[in-house]
């Protein structure tokens, strides 16, 4: 199957690591990989080009000195820019527009098979639960049994339905429904229209006339999450003719990466109101830009992972800075460091979140900080008084004995710890030796750095 972007990103990170900063050169390769990944996600080529240009600008100007790996900084930029495109400038635009005088109208438009009828019923169900009084209007007179389909759904969710009478046209049933909505105790109408091709002139003018006639405050484009590149042309035509107010992404429960939605927002800037996530009536969810962003990138867990590590890194950096200021490294600091490491010691978890090579993962897992050892060291340190930790030179034979007893260890273990502490103290002067240090402490935390 597709090489997942996570695998690619591992490669990217490997390449970027240790280079200190993002340069035009090392970014070029990465941009190529991102492009490939966005193509696999069906993002339209032009949208990709626009996107990459932005990423490039942002990255090259970015200060990365404080960060441990430029790769992490870079991918964060990519992610936040994606979210940026998917988040409408006007936050309120993702909400339905309620007409000043009811009924509020929602007109659904889109290609054949995009999921309009199901979505119409889901919307009715959603707003019914929200305390409104929606009605459904069957205005698809083209597809056989489209009216019956809506009828079945309407009775399932128990909302009124307006159907065309014999000989009535789509526009006529819409007009009639709007006129009689209030009488029928509906303050909201959802108009289900026939699927149509954007190049079908007569069908496009049919829906345009409906829109001009009933003036819906919401005209929503229903787009299939599995759509390819051409969706840009489709939505552009619909938008030009209809002045859409938003989109709904359907079939998001597929494993499609959903790049279509990025193409749509990037070309039309239309807000995304809902995402369809199942065939059931309650399968309609609000849109979360961050979720879709990582889905489009296909990154899933890797972002969580990066966040975790970044948090740890930041903290470690801070600690180191504090340390340097204090200029005295005592066992209290040692304990702090240890706890930091231990937190990362849920490394096992983190590793299991990593995509890719099982063998590699096992190797890392084997060499990951040993919980037992950590706990032992911690127990020893905690059996000391704060004063002893601050002034390790206080630790004579009898104190060591007491500490060993208190921590369930042998006095030799205390000596080993003190040696490790000495070593660390020396090493702390040179941050770059942190890794070597860990290895000498027998922890071997990062034999090979995790592949990200």
């Amino acid at each position: 199957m597709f090489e997942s972007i996570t695998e690619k990103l591992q490669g990217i990170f490997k390449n970027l690591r240790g280079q200190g900063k993002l340069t035009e050169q090392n970014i070029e390769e990465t941009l190529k990989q991102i492009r490939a990944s966005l193509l696999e996600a069906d993002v339209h080529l032009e949208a990709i080009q626009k996107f990459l240009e932005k990423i490039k600008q942002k990255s090259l100007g970015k200060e990365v000195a404080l960060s441990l790996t430029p790769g992490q900084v870079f991918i964060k930029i990519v992610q936040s820019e994606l979210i940026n495109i998917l988040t409408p400038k006007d936050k309120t635009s993702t909400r339905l527009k309620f007409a000043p005088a009811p009924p509020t109208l929602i007109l659904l438009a889109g290609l054949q098979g995009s999921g309009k009828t199901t979505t119409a019923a889901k919307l009715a169900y959603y707003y019914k639960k929200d305390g409104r009084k929606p009605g459904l209007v069957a205005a698809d007179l083209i597809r056989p049994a489209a009216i019956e389909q809506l009828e079945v759904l309407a009775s399932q969710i128990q909302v009124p339905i307006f159907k065309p009478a014999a000989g009535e046209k789509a526009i006529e049933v819409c007009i009639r429904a709007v006129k009689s909505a209030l009488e029928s105790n509906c303050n909201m109408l959802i108009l289900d229209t026939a699927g149509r091709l954007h190049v079908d002139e007569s069908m496009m003018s049919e829906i345009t006339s409906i829109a001009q006639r009933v003036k819906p405050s919401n005209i929503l484009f229903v787009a299939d999450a599995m759509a390819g590149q051409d969706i840009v042309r489709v939505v552009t035509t619909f938008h030009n003719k209809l002045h859409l107010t938003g989109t709904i992404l359907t079939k998001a429960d597929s494993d499609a990466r959903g790049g279509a939605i990025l193409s749509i927002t990037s070309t039309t800037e239309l807000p995304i109101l809902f995402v369809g996530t199942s065939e059931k009536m309650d399968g309609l969810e609000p849109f979360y830009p961050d979720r879709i962003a990582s889905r489009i990138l296909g990154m899933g867990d890797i972002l969580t992972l990066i966040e975790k590590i970044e948090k740890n890194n930041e903290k470690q950096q801070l600690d180191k800075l504090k340390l340097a200021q204090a200029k005295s490294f005592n066992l209290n600091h040692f304990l702090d460091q240890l706890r930091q490491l231990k937190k990362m010691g849920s490394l096992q978890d983190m590793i299991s979140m990593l995509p890719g090579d099982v063998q590699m993962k096992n190797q890392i897992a084997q060499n990951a900080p040993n919980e037992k050892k950590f706990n032992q060291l911690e127990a020893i340190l905690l059996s000391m008084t704060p004063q002893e930790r601050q002034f390790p030179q206080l630790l004579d034979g009898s104190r060591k004995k007491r500490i060993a007893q208190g921590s369930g260890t042998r006095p030799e273990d205390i000596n080993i710890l003190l040696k490790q502490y000495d070593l660390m103290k020396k090493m702390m002067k040179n941050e770059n030796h942190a890794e070597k240090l860990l290895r000498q402490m027998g922890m071997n935390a990062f034999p090979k750095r995790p592949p990200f």
Partner: protein
Amino acid sequence: MAFFIEKLKRGLKKTADQISQSWNAVINYRTTPEIDFNKLEETLLLADISLQTTENILKTLKSRIESNSSKSNDSGFIVEQLRQILVDKLQINNQRGPLSESTIILLVGVNGVGKTTTAGKLAHQLTHQGRSVTLVAADTFRAAAEEQLTQWASRVKVDIVKGLENEAPATIIYKVLKNFSERTQTIIIDTAGRLHTRVGLMEELKKLVRVAEKMIPLTMLEKWIVLDANMGQNAIHQVEEFHQGIGLTGIVLTKVDGTAKGGIVISLADRFHIPIVYLGVGETMDDIIPFDAQEFVSALLPKAG
């Protein structure tokens, strides 16, 4: 037949125009005699041909141009080579004989791609070939699905078999096939749309196929996946999952009458050996045509010369 081909061409004309436009940009032979491969790459990618397939195509094209260096400025030659590469890809998979005299065609695919419509159109087309066709409504899930197929059956004047209330699709098919060997006929089974990621629904489909395979000779069973030309790279996942699940014997590509290029079938040809059997080119009963690689690619690319 000429009518059908006309229809396909019309359907693909917009595409061809667009590709011609890009093509003109591709070969700007006055100022630079070199081909702009970036532009060409864009053209192929915009048709939903995957990046990998696109790169393969370009590699092949480049090497053909290199071994014919005297023609490296000849846009006619280059277009013809490109056409040939695409046709070859599609044709490898399309060596298949005619449908057997008695045939069961099972239509499968994700939601909304055009399975029911294709069932209706196929029934019409095969009736015209002198077959006795029966439609089977095995979509017991979608609201009014049976009603939709019933309307198609009466529109194209063929018999339809429906299940009883709450009858499982496998049971419906079992009942239909019980009498199958007794006479020569063609049966087209419309199934519920299912996302390839839904394990339960895929199991239901497998069961249904197992039932059919026990009851009739394998050569009589056609398992066709219906794909929408508007679909992007996910079509590859779809084919992979359905193929793994039930062993597909054909692909029907629908909605070719839009501007989407359905280039995904070219990527599919790289991975699977499943012939493309029909194209859907509209919503009326006549809007179906047998797939022809030459025609498909010709309608997609500008004429050589």
